[in-house]
Each structure stands twice: as C-alpha cells, then as structure tokens.
C-alpha cells in the first residue's frame, strides 16, 4: 500500500527529461514535466512526474529510450 499518488523520475539533464517526457507520452503514460521538488536533490532543474502506479511501466519505457534514470521517488 502506498500513500503516494505520484512519483517523479529524476534524470541527468533537462534534455534527458524532455526525452523521457516524449517517450512516456508516446506510450500513453500520463506524465508532466515539473521543477524538481525542493526536498529532493537533483542536479537537473526539472523532472518528470508520473502516477505512482505507473512506476514500473515508466521505468521500462524511459530506459528503453536509453535515458539513464538517476532515481524514481514517490512524492
């Protein structure tokens, strides 16, 4: 059980976030690019927010597009 509705995918750079957003969108996985939440440290200013329930599917899609994921964090 989780209390989290969303998760954020943290990647290395803004270009990587754009690429992740594009491939998720293409695969019909709901996502939105947002500034990295303040309590999470990341070197890139933006991250991709997804539904918590889509974490596994999103991870597969993003990694298949050769985008390295730093981490996926529930928010």
């Amino acid at each position, binding site marked *: 059980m989780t209390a989290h509705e969303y998760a954020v995918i943290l990647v290395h750079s803004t270009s990587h976030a*754009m690429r992740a957003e594009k491939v998720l969108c293409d695969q019909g996985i709901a996502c939105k690019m947002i500034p990295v939440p303040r309590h999470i440290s990341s*070197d890139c*200013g933006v991250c991709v927010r997804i539904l918590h329930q889509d974490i596994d599917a999103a991870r597969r899609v993003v990694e298949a597009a050769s985008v*390295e994921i730093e981490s996926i964090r529930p928010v």
Partner: protein
Amino acid sequence: MIYLDNAATTWPKPPGVAEAMLHYLNNVGANPGRSGHRLAVEAARIVYATREAVAGLFNAPDPLRVVFGANVTEALNLVLRGLLHPGHHVVTSSMEHNSVMRPLRELERQGVRVTVVGCSPQGSLDPTLVEAAIGPDTKMIVLNHASNVVGTLLPLAEVGRIARLHGLLLLADVAQTAGAFPVDMQADAIDLLAFTGHNSLYGPMGTGGLIIGERVDASLLEPLKRGGTGSRSEREEQPDFLPDACESGTPNGVGLAGLGAGIRWVQERGVQAIRAHEMALAQQLIDGLRAIPGVTVYGSLDATRQTATVAFNLAGMQPSEVGLRLDDEHSILCRVGLHCAPAAHKTLGTFPVGAVRFGLAALNTPEHVRTAVAAVRQLAKEAR
C-alpha cells in the same frame, strides 16, 4: 538582386525562421536547461524540439546523441581531434573542405597518418580506392557528401558499407547536402554526421552540430571544451553523458529556435521535392553556361550526380573580375576564388586561380537561372 551564394549560406531564409527567433528573444529568453522555472523549461523545450527535428531528418534513433555546436567546423574538429590520436590512420578524399583538411593536417603533424584518396577531375570518388587505402591502423574514413566547390556527390553509402566491413567509423560532412538531398544515418551507414544549420536547413549562422551514432563509444570522444552544462552541478568534473558531455556553456538558444523552424520548413516541402526542384535548376544552369562560348563548367555536368552548386570560368577574365562585374553590373551575388577548398581546386585543375561559383537553393527560380546565364553571356562577349 539575385543571391546565388547559397553554398556559403542560404538566403533569404523562409519567413518562419526569423519569427521563431524573435519569439524566443521577445517571449522566452531564458537559458535552456539551467533552471526549472517556466521560461527555462520553455527554452529547453524549443532546443529539445530542434534536437528531435535534427534526429528525425537524418533518421538518427536517439535525439540525445545530437550535440549542438557553433557550426559544422566545430563538429568536425570535435570528432577528428576527439577520436584520432598519434599512431592512428585516417582516410579522406581530395575533394574536402579545409574544415576537414586543416584539422587533419594538424593531426598529421602530431603523428596521425592521413591518406588523401584522389578524386577524378570531375570530383567523383571511386570507393574501391578508399578500400585499398585501409590499413591495420585505420580508424576512420572522413568524407564530404557533396563538394562545396562543384557539388559532386560522393558515394557515402558505398563507403559506409566499406567502413562497416572493416570495422571503421565513417564521419560524414553533410554541410552541402543536409536538407537538399536525402541523408539517412542508417541507410548510408554513417557513424558520425557533422551538419551545419545555416545552409539547406535554412537556420541562422552559428548553428550546427554532430550526431553520434550508436556504434561510436562516446566515452572515447574527447570534448573540445568543458564547462557548465546545467547538470551534475555538484561536481567539478565534466559529465560523461550525452549531449551534456560535449555541450558546455550557454547554447545558441535563439539560433536553435530558428534552426527548428528551418527544418520544419524543409520537412513541410519535403527533401525529395526540394531535391527535384534544385536538380532541375542545376541542369538548366549547367546547360545554359555550357552553351556560352568561352565558358568552362567544372564537375559532373550532370545534375543527378551533384547538388545545385555549379562552378565555372570564363576565358579571358579572372574569377574575381567576373564576380565583381556580376555584382556591380548585373546585381548577381556569387562566390569566386578557392572556396576554402584548395585540395578540391587542385583535383579539378583550377588551382590557384579558382573559379566562379553559383550556389542555388530551394528558393531560387528558373527565372533567376535565366537571368544569371544571360549575365554571364554578356560578360563572355565583353571578354573576347
């Protein structure tokens, strides 16, 4: 005024290009990839959209392997200086621009062995001669897709297959063909594609870049410069992932906005349609010039085997005088001389005098060609 210097840079640009640049300057303005606020994100989106457009145009699978830079020269230097080291051997053609020749001659001084395969006096290249030049230390073949002097197309796909067969990398300089002739990284077996934004992609000057194919180990590519990337900011070492590893410093966001618009215009017209239009103009120009007594046209003389760049000379008149009189008396703008390609002019037999070059592009018309041919005919009469 008729602008026929499109092989140096295309002009005019399609109207959407300046609009996209103005939009960026007036409404976006922020530094792409440097912050998370809405304008920075919008700026990053514009740059990323151009990255995708470039990857799409050249059939490159991963837009993150598109590295933007100031021009094709920077892209060529990045590859040549970043991957070739003393003891390596590299093969190129005698029709290359100095953007390839000068970095190679410097590398040669440092201990890289360089073989320049001779092309025919028409500027064409026999791929079997390239294969014959390959040795145990050969790492790379560097080839322009079309000559900037006479437009002759080189057999990129055939050489690409030879490179694959021998486990070598093919670096293609598509400065003269990108947007004007189909270029497909997969079909043409191109490992490293260096492009300029300001020619037939119709972007502004100051844009260009490199696409790094999947066969290239990018960790071996030594960046030309290191610095801020907006990523890995806690570290004082350069990031090792693309595109950031090779994109230090604030990018040319305004220019890349314009380049994106230029590529969209090319895609809307269709590269094949642009090619058909330019091929017809090129043949009209070649035939028109060849019919003038005293005119020598260089290259293949066959528009199917070249781009819409045509070089010629007029008996009894120096290229510089032809260029000046075309400008002063006929308002026709072209480029004369050696076109930064002494090796190509030596191959064509036009060194050191050079030639007059008419570079046509998608926005030229048959009427432009008729007027230009009539002007040369007038000069030819006066030269005799």
